[in-house]
Every structure is written in C-alpha cells, then in structure tokens.
C-alpha cells in the first residue's frame, strides 16, 4: 500500500447467494481526498463499503485500511478500527427512540468518558456544522429526509473520524437538500482533513466534489481517474454511464427470447 493511500483493495473477489459481485477488484483510495465510487444500481457499491468496514468478508484478496488488513482483524480490533471510521447510511439509520441530540451524543457516550457539559458543547458544534443546532430536541420521525441525513452526518463525525464513507447520500433528495449535502461533504473533507469515500450514481454531484472517481460494472472497475480523465475516457460503457444513455454496451432490454418466439408469432411476422 502506498503511503498516500488510506484504503487499498487488491484482487478482491466476493460472491453472495451464488452470484459473483466482485471479480478481482483492485483500487487505491488516497488519504485526505474525496473518492467517488460510481456505477449502475446493483453493481455492489454499498457492498464495497461493507467490505471496507469489515461487515462482510471477501472470498479472496486483501483489503487494507490505514495499514490494517480488515478481513484478518479480530472482533475487538475491528471494533477498535471502526472508531476511526464514520459511515453515512442511505437511510440515515438514526436511532428512532433517541432525539437528534442523543443520536449525535451516542458515539461519545459509548466510547468516551467526557463530562456531560463537554458532550453537550460538542454535540451542538457538530449540529451547527450541519446547520441543525436548532433541531436538537426533535425526534427522527419529525425530520425530513435531507435533515435526517444531515443529523446522521453530524453523528458520523462526532468522534472526529479519519475516514468517512457516504452511501448514496444524494438519493431521493430535492435539489436544495442535495446542494446542502454536496456543500457539507466538500466542506467537512476540507476542514477536517478526512478521507472520504462517496458511493453514488448521481454523476453530476459526485464529479463536482470528488478528487478521484472510479466506475464499477460487471464485478470490476471499468474506469478510474480524476473527473476530467473520466470525462474523456475511451470506454463506451463509461461514457454511457456518465452521459446516461439508455442504450449502449449496457442494453436497454433485459436478455430475453426472440420477440417472435415470445409472442408466439410463427414465421417472423413481427
């Protein structure tokens, strides 16, 4: 693993329910930068985050995070490593029985012995960073989708992690909420010196903030580089994804029998 890489994946193979999700994926995620992992739905982008976080184990290959081989870590070591990671889940994953304040305070209460007044101040600072200091007494059920993700973001940076992983942060957001999240991800990365991994299929937003990006399809990486390099990438499949063309190397039609056969039309009348 290079010195500048925070995460390094080498020849990762992973299958689930008899289906090969990754077939020898290798990538380097640089320290202190935003790396976007993009690809069509169902290509295993979220699975990749779970492999990095040690929630899943690869069939073969190595996954190194900050010098630790994640699949080889013992349970206690893995939980210890996760204290340096933050993850923003697609649904926000706030604890529904806790208020916004208590959700953000949760990691501090579990992992630190900080006095209550200090936890109070840190929580308000984190909520201020995402613009929701005034919402601290609300319950998760009272929040909009965008606010939920901002609270989840505040919670994921509560312990000042070194790495933060965003799972589809823009999915289902209105343009204003999306703009807010784009700004927050960029600002937090800059101000806290985080290593950020952004999984998304929102091409425009992702490329606007990432330093590097890679596109996954068919269990492997089909394109990687800076946003400018990707825009001029020669692969037709990469261009189809970036431009959003409905037909191309990824066909519009799901594989099926010939239409004449399916509709029972003899002699190819269709």
């Amino acid at each position, binding site marked *: 693993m290079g010195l500048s890489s925070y995460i390094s994946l080498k020849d990762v193979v992973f299958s689930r329910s008899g289906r090969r999700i990754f077939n020898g994926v290798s990538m380097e995620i640089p320290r202190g930068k935003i790396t976007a992992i993009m690809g069509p739905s169902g290509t295993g982008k979220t699975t990749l985050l*779970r492999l990095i976080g040690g929630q899943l184990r690869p069939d073969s290959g190595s996954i190194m995070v900050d010098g630790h081989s994640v699949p080889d870590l013992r349970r206690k070591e893995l*939980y210890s490593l996760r204290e340096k990671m933050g993850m923003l889940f697609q649904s926000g994953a706030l604890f529904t029985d806790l208020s916004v304040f208590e959700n953000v305070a949760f990691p501090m209460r579990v992992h630190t012995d900080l006095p209550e007044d200090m936890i109070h101040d840190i929580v308000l600072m984190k909520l201020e960073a995402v613009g929701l200091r005034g919402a601290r007494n609300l319950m998760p059920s009272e929040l909009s989708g965008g606010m939920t993700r901002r609270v989840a973001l505040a919670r994921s940076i509560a312990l000042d992690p070194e790495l933060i992983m965003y799972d589809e942060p823009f999915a289902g957001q209105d343009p204003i909420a999306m703009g807010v999240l784009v700004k927050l991800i960029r600002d937090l990365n800059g101000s806290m010196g985080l290593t950020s991994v952004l999984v998304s299929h929102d091409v425009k937003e992702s490329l606007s903030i990432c330093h590097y990006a890679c596109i996954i399809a068919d269990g492997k990486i089909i394109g990687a580089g800076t946003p400018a390099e990707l825009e001029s990438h020669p692969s037709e499949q990469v261009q189809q994804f970036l431009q959003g063309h409905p037909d191309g190397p990824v066909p519009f039609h799901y594989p099926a029998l010939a239409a004449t056969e399916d509709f029972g039309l003899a002699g190819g009348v269709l």
Partner: protein
Amino acid sequence: MIDKIASLGHSGISMVISFGRAGRFLAGVLSGVPRPVAGFPLLMRQLYSVGVLSLAIVVVSGLFIGMVLGLQGYTILSDFGSEAAIGQMIALTLVRELGPVVTALLFAGRAGSALTAEIGLMKATEQLSSMEMMGVDPLRRVIAPRLWAGFIAMPVLAVIFSMVGIWGGMLVGVEWLGVFEGSYWGNMQASVDFRDDVINGVIKSVVFGFVCSWIAVYQGYDCVPTSAGISSATTKTVVYSSLAVLGLDFVLTAVMFGNF
C-alpha cells in the same frame, strides 16, 4: 420417492443449520465481560418494556382464568361434596401449570412479538449496521438487555399471574358460590408445598422466559430486512415460542412431578 427423502434430508439439514446459528448467536450475546454501570439503565428500560407493559394482560388473564377455575372446580367438586377443596385445586393448577404456561404464551404474544418486530425494524432501517460501524456491538447493546429482561420478567409475571388467579378463584368460590373462606385458604396452605410446587413452577417460568426471549431476539436479528421478512419473523416467534413452551412443559412436568 427419492425426491421426498431428499427433501426431508434438506429440511433436516436446514433445521440443524438454524439451530447452530441460533446457538452461535446466543454465545455471542452471552459472551464478554458484563458492564453493570453501562448495562443497568438499558436493562431497566427493557424490563419496563417487556415486563411492566405486559402486566395488564397478565393480570386480566390471571383474574379470568382463576374465576373460570373457581366456577368449573365448584361445579365438578360439588358433585362429590368436596367443594371445600376448591382452593387446593385452583392453587395447584395455577402454581404448577397454568401460571408458568399461560404467562409464557401471553409473553410470547405480547412481548416476544414486539421484541422481534423492534429488532427486525432496527435491522431493516440499518440501525444495527450503523451501530456496528460506530464500533458498538449490537449483540451487547441491543440484544443482551432484551434477552436478560425477558429472562428476569417472566418468573415475576408468572408469580403475579398465579396470585391474581388464586384471588379470582376466591372471588367466585367464596364470595359468589359460598364456599367457606377458612376451607379455601386452609386446604390451600395444607396441600401446596413451597419447594415442590411453588419453586418448581418458578423454575418452569425461568426456563420458558429464557427460551421465549431467545427465540424472539434471534428471529428479529436473523430476519430478512423487509416488511414481509419482519412479518414472517414475528409470526415465527409466536409459533415457535408457543410450541417450545408446551413441549418443554411436558418434559419439565415429567421430570418434576413424574415420580418414576
């Protein structure tokens, strides 16, 4: 024919795998050093949720079952001129059998299904995953307090059920049908043995509490994280718990009262 045998074998293997997973799950929940300071508030919250909130259904059911026992007991025993033994009959029936068994069935329906649905929803909404990613083990933080709460609450609920049932039986037998109150309590005191009857009944409810809670938390944790998956897991909790309670009751009764 071969297909049927293969299908039977497949079901058997699936069942063994399922038992193995449940056993590993239980070992994961129970392993590790207990942290009383951090764990006590979590346990108290769950005791309130599975214990205190189950009180209403347990008390009302206990009252009516005691009253029905009083009525049936009087009708049957008066044919033999033995209605004075109604207190003894009600107390032994409740303390030995109906208290632990019916409380466990009510517990599975009220608290067990709620535990499964709650944990299943936490899984479906990625709350358990987010806890893992924060370096917090959900087995210790979410599952263990719920398992222990069920284990502790069940015997207490069963004792309350039996007490209320005995009182309900007295309402019908003594207050309504006119059995002499001294006979009701006196026969009961003379025939109910604390160690053989009361303690054995409590042991039964401890076993049922553990099994019902284990099934409930395991089904929630292992469910498919979709609405259909949670619904199926909740149903399984009630069905498996009920069958386990009734089966175990036979085994425990044979061991405790069989006199072989």
